């Protein structure tokens, strides 16, 4: 086995630039430069990641680090999301008197953690990467130190710590039964156990359930969603966007790798967890959509909407569980959905950042008549909300078709019916915001200013929403190649 630490280059680059940002923060007067340095770090890491694109998958560090197409795709996704978040934060952060460097550095550290989550194939490494991402996000959620933000940070920390404990408990059970921490070796061990031995080890099932609970917290599915509304409301809005997109995608990346590689070999086992994800998915969709209807705060509404979106994504996970080995539809469906959900939700949040900077409120009622005050921002927000419903010509439409198709292929028609009904319910609260913006009376005629950085970030997201929606073939090809996971 050869030792090749250069496989870790993108992560090292991001961590290095995070330290550079903190050091520069001591000397620089113009704090805007810090955002530029952070973006440069992300660009370097993206370059290093793209350089490996298409190369043969490789492992190093005792097979703990796996660099395959799957990992590369998620690394690029996290780097892209982090870059958009930093662009969108520029205005917001310039209002901070202190700790601007630390803000960017923590965003970068969280990105490193998420990149490692997608790229590690060993339980201890996965856990530590997950903690790296989580601890950075706990701090970012409480960054404003206002009562709401502190409450968000504290709630996220306490519930996150409990979920980490459950996750560790699950990992301990899995390790106890299989005697391995490498995902591939866990898979081999389970395959060699045979059915009798498998049913004689309920601790393995218990471990899997605990893993679902631990990771379920990261992806915010019901019933591990209680932290979402308060944290989303209290955290700084760019951090909320980061949480709702990158942290969720990282959770799905880990789930796909762990469950596919370690527990995907024995069909008897994989249909079990496929069913578990199907049931949790139904609960997430239904609770998320129904409770979102009653929300008056747009950040809380998008919080519940993100719970519902996690439910749609879990339809894909259920399809993976039911899929015979070698199937790619479920996995590429989840990957496509995550990418299009990322651009859509980021677009929505960036528009909200711009609007709430001006009106200083997150209440949906205060968006009344926004179409006349900020026509472009309102159009952007409306487009993103339409994509969240899943209507053409947006990315959300293709993503839903694709993921539901994978479920239909595996005889999960009932699940798809529930998901489609839920999409109809969701149209109500998404379109209500559009209605308020376009038909409501504006409170004033003042325009809504936005910085160039924010407009750039918003344009990139919108381009993504439309491009993936109108010409999905390119992203589909990438998603299908990203499915190639080293098992």
């Amino acid at each position, binding site marked *: 086995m050869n*030792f090749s630490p250069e496989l870790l280059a993108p992560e090292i680059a991001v961590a290095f630039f995070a330290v550079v940002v903190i050091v520069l923060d001591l000397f620089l007067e113009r704090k805007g430069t810090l955002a530029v340095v952070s973006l440069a770090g992300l660009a370097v890491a993206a370059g290093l990641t793209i350089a490996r694109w298409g190369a043969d998958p490789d492992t190093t560090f005792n097979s*703990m680090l796996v660099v395959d197409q799957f990992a590369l795709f998620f690394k690029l996704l996290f780097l892209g999301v982090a870059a958009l978040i930093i662009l969108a934060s520029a205005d917001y952060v310039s209002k901070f008197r202190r700790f601007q460097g630390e803000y960017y550095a923590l965003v970068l550290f969280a990105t490193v953690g998420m990149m490692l989550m997608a790229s590690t194939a*060993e339980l201890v490494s996965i856990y*530590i990467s997950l903690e790296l991402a989580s601890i950075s996000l706990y*701090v970012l959620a409480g*960054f404003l130190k206002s009562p709401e933000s502190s409450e968000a940070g504290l709630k996220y920390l306490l519930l996150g710590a409990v979920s980490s404990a459950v996750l560790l408990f699950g990992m301990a059970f899995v390790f106890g*039964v299989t*005697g391995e921490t490498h995902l591939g070796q866990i898979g081999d061990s389970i395959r060699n156990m045979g059915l009798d031995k498998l049913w004689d080890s309920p*601790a393995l099932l*218990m471990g899997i359930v605990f893993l679902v609970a631990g990771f379920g917290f990261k992806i915010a599915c019901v019933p591990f969603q209680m932290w979402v509304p308060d944290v989303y409301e209290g955290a700084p809005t760019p951090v909320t966007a980061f949480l709702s997109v990158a942290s969720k995608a990282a959770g799905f990346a880990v789930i796909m790798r762990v469950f596919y590689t370690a527990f995907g070999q024995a069909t008897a086992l994989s249909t079990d967890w496929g069913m578990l994800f199907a049931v949790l998915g139904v609960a997430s969709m239904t609770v998320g959509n129904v409770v979102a209807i009653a929300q008056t705060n747009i950040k809380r509404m998008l919080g519940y909407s993100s719970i519902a979106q996690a439910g749609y994504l879990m339809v894909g996970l259920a399809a993976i569980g039911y899929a015979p080995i070698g199937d790619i539809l479920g996995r590429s469906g989840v990957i496509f959905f995550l990418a299009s959900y990322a651009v859509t939700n980021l677009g929505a949040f960036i528009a909200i950042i711009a609007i709430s900077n001006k009106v200083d409120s997150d209440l949906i009622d205060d968006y009344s008549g926004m179409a006349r005050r900020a026509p472009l921002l309102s159009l952007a927000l409306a487009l993103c909300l339409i994509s969240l419903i899943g209507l053409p010509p947006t990315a959300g439409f293709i993503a839903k078709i694709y993921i539901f198709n994978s479920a239909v292929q595996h005889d999960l028609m009932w699940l798809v019916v529930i998901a489609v009904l839920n999409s109809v319910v969701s149209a109500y609260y998404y379109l209500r915001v559009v209605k308020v913006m376009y038909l409501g009376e504006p409170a004033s005629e003042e325009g809504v200013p936005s910085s160039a950085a924010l407009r750039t970030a918003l344009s990139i997201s919108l381009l993504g929403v439309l491009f993936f929606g109108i010409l999905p073939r390119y992203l589909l090809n990438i998603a299908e190649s990203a499915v190639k996971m080293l098992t």
Partner: protein
Amino acid sequence: MGTGSELAFWLLAVLIVGSALAVVVLRDVFRAALFLVLCFFAVAGIYIILSADFLAAVQVLIYVGAIAVLIIFAIMLTREAQRGSPSNRLQIPVLIVGLLLLAVIVAVVVDTSWPAADVPPPAPTTGDIAEKLFDKNEGFVLPFEIASVLLLAAMIGAIVLVRERKEE
């Protein structure tokens, strides 16, 4: 396991569960912290029975030594420590759910045929742990390195959250 270590195991087990319960049930935060120290100490005893000598030493040094002192200091520096941990209406539901979970876990653990190694545990373990941790081809170098980044992020985060906002 010999009868001697079996006896020691059950004594330690009772001590661990009892002191952990006291941590949760006691209203006085300071006493709860002291029971936590006792719990940590008894866990170190379990490690000794399992002939994990290095782990036992580390448990005493870090948990009993450093972390317990830190917790006690934090309590003494907190103004509202006298009030104790507040109670709430969820006590009974939590008790029921907790007992159910306990029953399920115990049933599962008893029911599972755990694989056991047929070789005696190595002693002393310190050298082997070092090999496992730092060998770049067979060890856990990657999580070790990520942990260092994690600690850096946690320190930065702690500074950000704790430093007072000065009006300038």
